[in-house]
């Protein structure tokens, strides 16, 4: 659709948020030394932080929560777990978050068996993304065909400029929201667009500089390559198997299903779905005779390699997309200092 670029004054941002008219409104705010999503419902909030570093967490958890009830059985006649209306608006997501959601959409909506909970939340969501003008030192979206800004397939996108934001819609949902705030918007000036473009180029230059030692992976990583397993093992050597990389990853989607007696209805049972990590030793352990628990990947090195090859080789084979968007949050979260960029080099060498 045709995107018209307009200007929203900084002081009109609260009014703009107010007019979104949803209870589930979350935006990025400063918390100590990092940026995090906080509920903006109910007035009296911290100011939005849309000009600084990227948020520490992706938006994955809003759509694929760390723990959720996915079944009650025997199934009650009337209740449907997906009946709830839960419109949600998120302000402050970055290009990498949007790219990651596109991947999760493929898995949870367009896969063999759509996940109705994820699908419902996605359909009821509106994302207001923002230029990532100050990439973190661990960011490497540029190595994976990413950019620190969004120029297509968004709902609403903001570009911070002097005294306000350039604002544009690229979906019907987004356009409808902008229409409600038409009186707050003025046409963008050429000088503002020039500032936006300058800032975007500066962010690209920063990413280029900080990642220059890591060559971009070839188009089909792993195809015909022989990974250097010794180097991979060395990288895995500093892994402490906490699983943080998987949990913080905006595209990691391994999960565990477990059942328990119903908390509110003792005659029914509930099934929960929680985040899990393929790096953890117990992840794929099976029942075995005499208490022996066989697992297909008993070595940490094998699990480490499995996680990387899934993202960079097998998702390419199966879905024609790379399972990493270069947000670098795994690097930031890792207690062992593992850097996915180093491991990636070994995989595609």
């Amino acid at each position, binding site marked *: 659709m045709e995107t018209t670029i307009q200007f929203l004054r900084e002081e009109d941002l609260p009014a703009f948020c107010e007019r979104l008219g949803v209870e589930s409104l979350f935006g990025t705010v400063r918390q100590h030394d990092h940026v995090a999503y906080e509920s903006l419902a109910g007035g009296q909030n911290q100011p939005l932080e849309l000009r600084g570093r990227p948020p520490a967490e992706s938006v994955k958890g809003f759509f694929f929560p760390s723990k959720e009830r*996915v*079944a009650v*059985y*025997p*199934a009650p006649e009337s209740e449907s*777990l*997906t009946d709830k209306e839960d419109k949600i608006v998120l302000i402050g997501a970055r290009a990498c978050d949007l790219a990651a959601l596109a991947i999760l959409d493929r*898995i*949870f909506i367009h*896969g*063999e*068996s*759509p*996940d*109705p909970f994820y*699908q*419902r939340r996605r359909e009821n969501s509106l994302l207001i993304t923002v230029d990532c003008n100050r990439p973190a030192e661990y960011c490497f979206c540029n190595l994976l065909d990413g950019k620190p800004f969004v120029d297509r397939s968004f709902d609403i996108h903001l570009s911070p400029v002097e005294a306000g934001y350039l604002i544009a819609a690229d979906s019907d949902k987004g356009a409808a929201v902008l229409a409600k705030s038409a009186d707050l918007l003025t046409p963008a000036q050429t000088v503002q667009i020039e500032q936006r473009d300058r800032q975007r180029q500066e962010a690209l230059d920063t990413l280029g500089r900080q990642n220059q030692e890591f060559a971009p992976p070839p188009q089909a990583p792993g195809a015909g390559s022989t990974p250097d397993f010794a180097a991979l093992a060395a990288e895995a050597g500093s892994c402490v198997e906490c699983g943080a990389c998987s949990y913080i990853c905006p595209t990691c*989607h*391994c*999960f*565990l*299903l*477990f*059942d*328990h*007696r119903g908390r509110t209805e003792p005659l029914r*049972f509930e*099934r929960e*779905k929680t985040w*899990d990590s*393929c790096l953890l030793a117990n*992840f*794929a*352990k*099976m*029942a*075995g*005779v005499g208490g022996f628990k*066989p697992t*297909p*990947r008993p070595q940490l090195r*094998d699990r480490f390699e*499995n996680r990387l*090859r*899934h993202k960079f*080789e*097998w998702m390419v*084979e*199966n879905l024609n997309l790379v399972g990493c968007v270069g947000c670098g949050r795994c690097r930031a979260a890792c207690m062992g200092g593992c850097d996915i960029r180093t491991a990636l080099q070994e995989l595609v060498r």
Partner: protein
Amino acid sequence: MITSNPYLPMETELLEVIDETPTIKTLVLKPREPIPFRAGQFMQLTLPGVGEAPFTPSSNPRDADRQEITILKTGQVTDRLHDAAPGDLLGLRGPFGKGYPLEKFHGKEVLLVGGGVGLAPLRALIYALGNEPKKFRRVSIKYGARRPAERLYPGQYEQWRGIDNFDFTETVDVAEDGWKGNVGVVTTLLPDDLDIDRTNAYVVSCGPPIMLRFVTLRCLELGFTPAQIYLSLNRKMSCGFGVCGRCNIGPYYLCKDGPDMCYEKIMHYDNVF
């Protein structure tokens, strides 16, 4: 459009429990609605409040309204499933996976090699082959159990031998109780002069991983190609549609691409067995 809930098990009544061996029982199940399945496809059986475990039905795929699942008592869920009694309410999700490629076997000789409780998924295949025996040139079943008392479905062996182009041979690892039959692991039933047309046959094997490994190596020695060997690799499959991440071998998810995999597809990946 919101589709149905893939995590929700279908209410299923336990009709009957059959004691097969000291450690194996068969549960006869009646799901609320019929569940059509192909031989080799698996289902997630829910024990309410305890959890799910994946099993390939051992019954005739022609019977959609009633499934038999044969279970070795070997872990948290299966221990408790062995305590289940007729009338208990369980749950089923599925079927999942591709199942055995029956159409490929048309006009061919089919060599089935089973070990222990691995005969359970193969029994569904034996039923399927037996439903239309003329479509297959020959069906040769080789089965190994640890001990005579652990032989699964002994009452059916004569029936299988009685089908025109079927044969059935068995062995036990350890002879006991005046056993007069073959003794040795199941690969001893695959001698150099094995009477199978290797250029026109498929091998299907199901059993413990160590057995699958040696059966595969033996079949390769005998001149079968990796493309002729199908292995039933029933790992810790959970979601059933290739998302939760547990059951992959390289890019393949056993829950959706298997659990019966052509060895040629997976032979280059680590940790197959």
